């Protein structure tokens, strides 16, 4: 017990210190808390009235629906380190504690108990209470209902912890971890598309899904749902079912905690061998592009292809405009008139603000800035690689456009996207230099060490300012691209589009020259901020 309380105190002290030692982080927390509270209250109201209304209309389908919801929520929460590339709830860094004579079960329990006080967990408690009030038919049953829902919640947290530990074991092999993260990010992206697809299809498919769930009750076997099912039975006064599901839920929690303790032990002893064989030696290296600029560009492209999170960004850029296709196809006027496409092109280009190209270098920044290569080359290479990574998205946008708008809008849309992209990339250099944000490695806690949003507020304000400035600076060139449409003389494009591109390129060159000069003065500060520990 002494070890358990010492571990929990250690975790709270570290969390508190992380906030107190960085004023910006404390300020960020203060800004986030009201939002989190509002979200929590809104979600609670939605859950309370939603469940009450659903039970009134389809009382038999409430259990299957809540079981499915608990399972989906639990699966997302537990798989968060895989699905989002970072852990939603921080756990103790097991690697630092395993050499102490702490029983693995104590280690696991301390992590679980510490997680209960995390803001993301606390924000769920009003939702838990709202759900309990919604499903409880009498005040007397309320304690049992709350107990049941908390069982599900505890199982979700315990599962999240077990997945974190499993990833810790997988992380011993870099290739396996890359594959796991790539797959997870792909699944995550597909899940994020589901609401769009459901919205595009209207209420019909959604109701069919609900009725199918009701008919099959497929999630009754999910341990995530057992606690919630126990709560619903308690609310209806069905004590035998409450005891059965409650006991099953408690056993499931104990099983997961025991599994986590076993995983901890096996990781410590190096027995968790999930490793495929090491890489065979690859073929000889060959740099394809010429010159210093080419080498910088090639380095960035190779790194992007080999880093799961960056590779995922590439594919999301490709698929993103297809989502817009679904949305725009639902809006008859704007999309099909071509105006929507031009707006989409403008914002696709301008959305390069916030690329944080130097923060993404992580430890490599010390190497990059140690080379005697002209800084404008570094900036241009960074911009080029980012533009190349966004190219699939722009091509997909063209594809979308060809379905949506009259074909003669495509040259203007392409030019607008390029013009805003050029100016946004140049402007973003200033943000990347002045406010580089350290990026955590894949699967790492985003709030740990130097990775926390230090001076994030200044960066966010500058980013918003640069976005507005980009639109402002790009507007004359956008107007040139738009002019033939306004005048109804498509032939004018032969003159106006090259002129718009030339003008944007000139602005780009001027902005990059200024950014290179700024960078040469700010290099030590950039390195200090990205590496953090100096």
């Amino acid at each position, binding site marked *: 017990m002494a070890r358990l309380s010492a571990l929990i105190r250690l975790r709270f002290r570290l969390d508190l210190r992380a906030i107190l030692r960085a004023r910006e982080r404390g300020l960020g927390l203060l800004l986030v808390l009201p939002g989190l509270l509002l979200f929590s209250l809104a979600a609670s109201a939605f859950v309370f009235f939603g469940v009450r209304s659903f039970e009134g209309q389809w009382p038999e389908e409430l259990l299957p629906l809540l079981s499915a919801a608990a399972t989906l929520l639990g699966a997302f929460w537990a798989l968060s380190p895989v699905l989002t590339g970072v852990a939603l709830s921080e756990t103790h860094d097991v690697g630092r504690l395993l050499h102490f004579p702490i029983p693995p079960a104590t280690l696991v329990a301390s992590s679980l108990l510490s997680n209960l006080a995390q803001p993301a967990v606390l924000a769920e408690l009003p939702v838990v209470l709202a759900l309990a009030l919604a499903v409880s038919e009498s005040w007397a049953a309320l304690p049992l209902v709350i107990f049941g829902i908390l069982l599900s919640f505890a199982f979700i947290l315990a599962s999240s912890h077990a997945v974190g530990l499993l990833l810790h074991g997988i992380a011993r092999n*870099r290739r396996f971890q890359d594959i796991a993260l790539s797959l997870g990010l792909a699944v995550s992206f597909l899940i994020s598309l589901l609401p769009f697809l459901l919205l595009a299809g209207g209420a019909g498919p959604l109701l069919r899904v609900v009725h199918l769930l009701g008919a099959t009750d497929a999630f009754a076997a999910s341990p995530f749902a057992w606690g919630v099912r126990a709560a619903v039975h308690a609310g209806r006064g069905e004590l035998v079912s409450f005891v059965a599901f409650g006991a099953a839920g408690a056993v499931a929690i104990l099983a997961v905690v025991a599994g986590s303790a076993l995983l901890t032990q096996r990781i410590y002893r190096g027995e968790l061998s999930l490793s495929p064989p*090491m*890489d*065979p*030696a*690859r*073929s*000889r*290296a060959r*740099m394809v592009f*010429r*010159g*210093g600029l*080419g*080498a*910088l560009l*090639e*380095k960035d492209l*190779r*790194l992007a292809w*080999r*880093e799961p999170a960056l590779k995922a960004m590439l594919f999301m850029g490709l698929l993103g405009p297809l989502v817009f296709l679904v949305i725009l196809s639902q809006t008859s006027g704007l999309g099909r008139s071509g105006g929507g496409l031009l707006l989409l092109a403008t914002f696709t280009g301008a959305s390069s603000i916030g690329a944080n190209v130097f923060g993404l270098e992580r*430890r*490599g*920044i*010390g*190497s990059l*800035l*140690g*080379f*005697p*290569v*002209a*800084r404008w080359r570094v900036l241009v290479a960074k911009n080029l690689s980012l533009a190349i990574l966004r190219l699939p998205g722009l091509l997909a946008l063209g594809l979308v456009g060809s379905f949506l708008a009259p074909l003669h809008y495509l040259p203007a849309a392409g030019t607008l996207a390029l013009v805003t992209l050029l100016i946004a990339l140049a402007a973003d250099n200033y943000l990347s230099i002045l406010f580089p944000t350290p990026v955590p490695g894949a699967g790492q806690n985003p709030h740990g060490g130097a990775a926390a949003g230090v001076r994030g507020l200044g960066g966010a304000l500058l980013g918003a300012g640069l976005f507005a400035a980009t639109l402002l600076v790009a507007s004359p060139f956008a107007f040139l691209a738009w002019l033939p449409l306004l005048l109804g003389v498509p032939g004018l494009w032969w003159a106006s589009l090259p002129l718009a591109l030339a003008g944007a390129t000139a602005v780009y060159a001027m902005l990059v020259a200024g950014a290179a000069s700024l960078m*040469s003065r700010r*290099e*030590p*500060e950039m*390195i*200090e901020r990205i*590496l953090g520990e*100096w």
Partner: protein
Amino acid sequence: MSDSQGASGQAPADAIVVRGLSKRFRDKAAVDDISFRVQRGRFFGFLGPNGAGKSTTIKMLTGLLRPTAGGAEIEGLSLARDLLAIKGLIGVLPEDLPLYERLTGEEYLHFAGRMYGLSPQETRQRSDELLEFLSLADDRGKLIVDYSQGMKKKTALAAALIHNPRVLFLDEPLNGIDPISGRVVMDLLLRLAQKGVTLFFTSHVLDVVERLCDEVAVIHHGRIVAQGTLEQIRAHREVAEDASLEDVFLKLVAADVKRDDLSWLA
């Protein structure tokens, strides 16, 4: 001589000149008003206990950290004004090995060669030789993230050498390297010194420093407490003529170390 861009005019006698260099982190002076000179072609050992300011000094001299006060010249070029030119003349092996871990060892060397302005043919030839010389050839195609710590250190050293620098800054170059590779690296460093390359070297392995270095400076609590050849320091500090560098070092920096026994061992 370096293949990279260099200082114009006659080469100065001193490769490194440091004047009143200081670095403060909030209230703490990590480096406090240090001054010293290193002649060209010297093997210069920079010693000190943990946290004394060695790595901070190297980071300032290589342009990775801005001094709070003071300045320095490398090969006659001002650190404040000619940083980019200086980066072409020096090679750096930092303690924290800032490598691109998702490149292979060979790709990283090719990248480094191109960044130093070498032609593709030169880069390929030199990286082949360096990979062979440092016993990395068999692992040239593996990603650096899959390398051991020693292999990473050798890769960073190869990248620091690929452009044949005039001045080499080496922060703990032998840490984590096996004894065979350690010997190879030491022999290489001695050859470089004989060829006129200036080496600025930090290490905790004092017998290696004693064997390799022509001159040493000892930094303690951010201040230089001794500088010169070992003989000069011995004479100045009044230690026995046959005293080792370790004896001298302990006399210089360990005076304030408490030696009370642990109570539970009594």
